[in-house]
């Protein structure tokens, strides 16, 4: 009897141990993957940071000269590394793109979810997915062969420039903002809308006074995500912006962005040269900006949950 009992206990023990082993293997595998991910992110951040700092630490370029200097002449006899034109170019194109794309995206999202939820969604959903799947070089090419000639004919200048860059970018970030906004709108409890209707509010009043204010933090999240994409986009912008190292005085003048300067310059410089280091510093600025965008998104999400 007693023997039987101990055997049963042992049996149970060994069965539990098997589960434990499976659990342990699964957990170690997961931990390994997460660890790998964290290591690669940390080392990337470390690499970009250490490279980016060397402009200031090794080449002794002052922070003020880099961030506020307007003259970019890295290969000259007396090299200067003023990156302000590119920082300004990045911000101007990004903000313009967001200004153009946000109203369009929000309207598209409202159309899909509120105005004609049936075929509106069926029609627009695949279009938006397609838009986000098109490679950026295609956007740049279309910009170069459609938008640039159009701008050249209508406005003064060569067509290439800030306006062309912002227009191309705005089309590229449309799907991001639209899909985030549409998700937020369709997640809204239906009876919130209905209680507005039940008070005799019209559809427009309901959209403008109930639906949009309620979903605003989520929609802004979409806008910030779109801006992050615009800020980091290199190829398409580079094709249409003209790549002149100056702060643009009008929308139809050539300019550069941080990304376009990096992609154009990286291949033509030698490692550890001051020029190369300056490009890394710009990469660092880009990275920090991305962190800032992520931070803003987090902040908005926190506000939404309250």
């Amino acid at each position, binding site marked *: 009897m007693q023997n039987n009992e101990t055997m049963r206990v042992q049996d149970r023990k060994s069965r539990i141990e098997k589960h434990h082993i499976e659990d342990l293997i699964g957990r170690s595998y997961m931990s390994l993957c997460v660890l790998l991910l964290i290591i690669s992110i940390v080392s990337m951040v470390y690499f970009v940071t250490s490279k980016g700092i060397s402009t200031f630490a090794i080449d002794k370029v002052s922070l003020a000269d880099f961030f506020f200097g307007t003259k970019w002449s890295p290969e000259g006899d007396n090299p200067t590394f003023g990156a302000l034109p590119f920082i300004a170019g990045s911000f101007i194109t990004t903000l313009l793109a967001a200004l153009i794309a946000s109203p369009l995206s929000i309207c598209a999202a409202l159309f899909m979810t509120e105005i004609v939820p049936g075929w509106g969604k069926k029609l627009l959903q695949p279009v938006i997915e397609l838009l986000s799947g098109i490679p950026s070089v295609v956007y740049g090419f279309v910009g170069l062969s459609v938008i640039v000639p159009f701008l050249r004919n209508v406005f003064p200048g060569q067509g290439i420039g800030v306006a062309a860059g912002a227009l191309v970018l705005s089309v590229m970030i449309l799907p991001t903002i639209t899909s985030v906004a549409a998700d937020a709108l369709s997640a809204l*409890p239906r*009876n919130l809308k209905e209680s507005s209707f*039940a*008070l*005799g509010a019209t559809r427009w009043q309901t959209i403008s006074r109930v639906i949009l*204010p309620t979903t605003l933090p989520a929609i802004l999240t979409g806008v910030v995500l779109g801006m992050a994409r615009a800020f980091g986009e290199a190829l398409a912008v580079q094709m249409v912006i003209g790549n002149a190292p100056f702060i643009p005085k009008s929308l139809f003048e050539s300019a550069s962005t941080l990304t376009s300067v990096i992609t154009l310059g990286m291949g033509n410089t030698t490692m550890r040269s001051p020029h190369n280091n300056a490009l890394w510093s710009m990469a660092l600025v880009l990275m920090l900006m991305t962190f800032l965008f992520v931070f803003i998104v987090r902040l908005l999400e926190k506000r939404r949950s309250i």
Partner: protein
Amino acid sequence: MEATLTAPQILKAPKMERDFRTENLSIFYGTYEAVKGISLPFPEKSVTALIGPSGCGKSTFLRSLNRMNDEISGSTSKGSIWIDGVDINAPGTDVIKLRQKIGMVWQKPNPFYKSIYENIAFGPKYHGVKGKKALDEIVESSLRRAALWDEVKDRLKDSALALSGGQQQRLCIARALSVNPQILLLDEPASALDPVSTGKVEELIKELKEQLRIVIVTHNMQQAARVSDFTAYFYLGQLIEYGMTEKVFTNPENTMTQEYIMGRFG
């Protein structure tokens, strides 16, 4: 409470009955007939309870009374809804105007993501009420009618979402009252609330029926018995039984009604 007409008196007053009633009202979702030709009166100064198992069409029926089903694509209806001699189910009815006459409160409290004050002022603002003083008055009187004023009068600018569930529901009732409706539709208004809040909402219903007609959908038999004057039992989109609540609950004519009320079915 003494001033209220007793249920038999109301039933004997056929002229009042005609004020608000449905006539052969059918509601379809696509080709599915969710409500099958129901004729039902809603007498003045009384509460009518709609009971029946889930999916019996009672909520659909309730929602059709202020044309809320218009917002659901694929939903169509046949028959008439008479209010003051006008068929509001007829095409061409101004739904926006109509909804000012008929307030509605949902199962889950759903205040707007605004302040308590803004929640109440929302409706009146759209119906031409101008000036802070007029709005202040409406906010106060609506909250008083919903027995919420004393609890929130010092924090009208606070977010409505900071209120408890029961307070939120009374806020929703106050919001519905803000446009001074003649009829109040309640879709299981207490099913998401705790017993104390439920008691308060039920008290409120009894008080409010002095001023307007109330139609309530409920799954809670005791609640229907407590608050309503008339009860209609729905099953599979049909009206099985209608009568004074007392009669329906103590001596129903139909055995199906009896079994449902006793909890043996549904």
